[in-house]
């Protein structure tokens, strides 16, 4: 395990980044609210942002993060916060919509041009996002990477960035809160999501019997169960949101409704 100074540096770096982005988010709200033709930015989204950032901070700095360096159960708790809960809450805070609203028309157009690029389309494809997200976890827990991460602060930094970024990418590839250039249909997203959830479950059972190097068997077992059931819980929210959109989009139109009610 590495020295306390290095740990503190990494934790502080994360804290500074989150404070910076929160400052940007709040400034963007003011910019967007100044535009008279737009509705005021919902307070609920600011709350989603703040709770999302808070759960990422708890995972990255402070007592839970510190305990996570020595105890796999706390590591896994932090992982749930950073890789699943924080991405979900931040996705719900619709940062991309806010950005587009706060920019001038010219810059917003440039931004959407980027979002429409092949590059962006490739990354927000649910399959790419799932492979990056769940595949990254397999790399972390089923290879020596977990151990290397704990001996190199640089690796630690990038692994944690990846966990959050991949979790966020996965969330926005499944539920569309912000604008998306290419919308994949519900069946496709559901099938990919089922596969991703299954592989996540299989990985947690794998950890249960094959602890990463240097992790006590008892801690690996509790950590794996936390991953399995905690993952289920947050995925349940995602499933509900996905199906809620589907339900609303499948609303019968006036004619159809009359056809249903008439008895031919």
């Amino acid at each position, binding site marked *: 395990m590495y020295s306390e100074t290095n740990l503190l540096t990494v934790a502080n770096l994360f804290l500074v980044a989150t404070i910076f982005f929160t400052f940007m988010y709040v400034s963007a709200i003011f910019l967007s609210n100044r535009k008279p033709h737009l509705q005021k930015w919902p307070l609920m989204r600011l709350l989603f942002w703040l709770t999302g950032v808070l759960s990422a901070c708890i995972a990255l700095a402070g007592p839970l993060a510190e305990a996570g360096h020595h105890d796999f159960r706390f590591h896994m708790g932090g992982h749930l916060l950073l890789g699943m809960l924080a991405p979900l809450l931040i996705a719900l805070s619709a940062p991309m919509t806010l950005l587009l609203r706060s920019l001038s028309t010219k810059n917003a157009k440039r931004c959407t041009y980027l979002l429409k690029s092949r590059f962006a389309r490739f990354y927000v494809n649910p399959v790419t996002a799932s492979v990056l997200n769940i595949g990254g976890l397999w790399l972390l827990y089923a290879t020596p990477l977990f151990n290397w991460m704990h001996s190199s602060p640089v690796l630690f930094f990038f692994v944690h960035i990846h966990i959050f970024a991949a979790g966020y990418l996965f969330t926005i590839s499944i539920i569309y809160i912000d604008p998306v250039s290419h919308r994949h249909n519900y069946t496709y997203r559901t099938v990919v999501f089922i596969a991703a959830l299954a592989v996540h479950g299989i990985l947690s059972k794998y950890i249960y019997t094959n602890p990463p190097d240097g992790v006590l068997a008892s801690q690996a077992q509790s950590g794996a169960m936390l991953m*399995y059931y905690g993952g289920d819980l947050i995925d349940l929210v995602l499933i509900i949101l996905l199906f809620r959109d*589907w339900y609303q989009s499948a609303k019968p139109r006036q004619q159809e409704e009359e056809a249903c009610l008439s008895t031919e």
Partner: protein
Amino acid sequence: MTHTPESRNKLSKHLFKQKNLWSGILFGLGFAAFADEVIFHQLLHWHKFYDLSSTSVGLVSDGLFHAFSWFATVGSLYLVADLRRRQGLWPKMWWSGKLLGAGGFQLYDGLIQHKLMRIHQIRYHVNIIYYDLIWNIIAVILIIVGIYLYKKATLDAKILEASNHV
């Protein structure tokens, strides 16, 4: 032909026979899998989170099944909501599906997962035959009641249709 809202509803729901049946089956599957996990894994600790299967195929199939059942529970309830807003919910058909789904899962679990693949048993260090018998007999009863309800619902629909054509 004019109809009171009630007779309208009775007729319209028969347009959604498949949807009623399948949302019931999905809910039954999801519910049975969920109940199995809560009662036998968490509360009774009869079989565990992972019962060291001899085959990795078992682990993969289990993972897929679990993920599917999680989706099925939520998805089927949205289907029920959809049927309701179309005035097409047909409880007898839905329940038939639910019992078929739950019974079908339990029989699959009891025969394929317990006996064929031997992923886990209901309980350990006891004479398992009684547990197996009770488990599978309950599954068969659920399926039989499901089929009975299905027949009954179909018959109801026929009678209603006939009375409307007179």
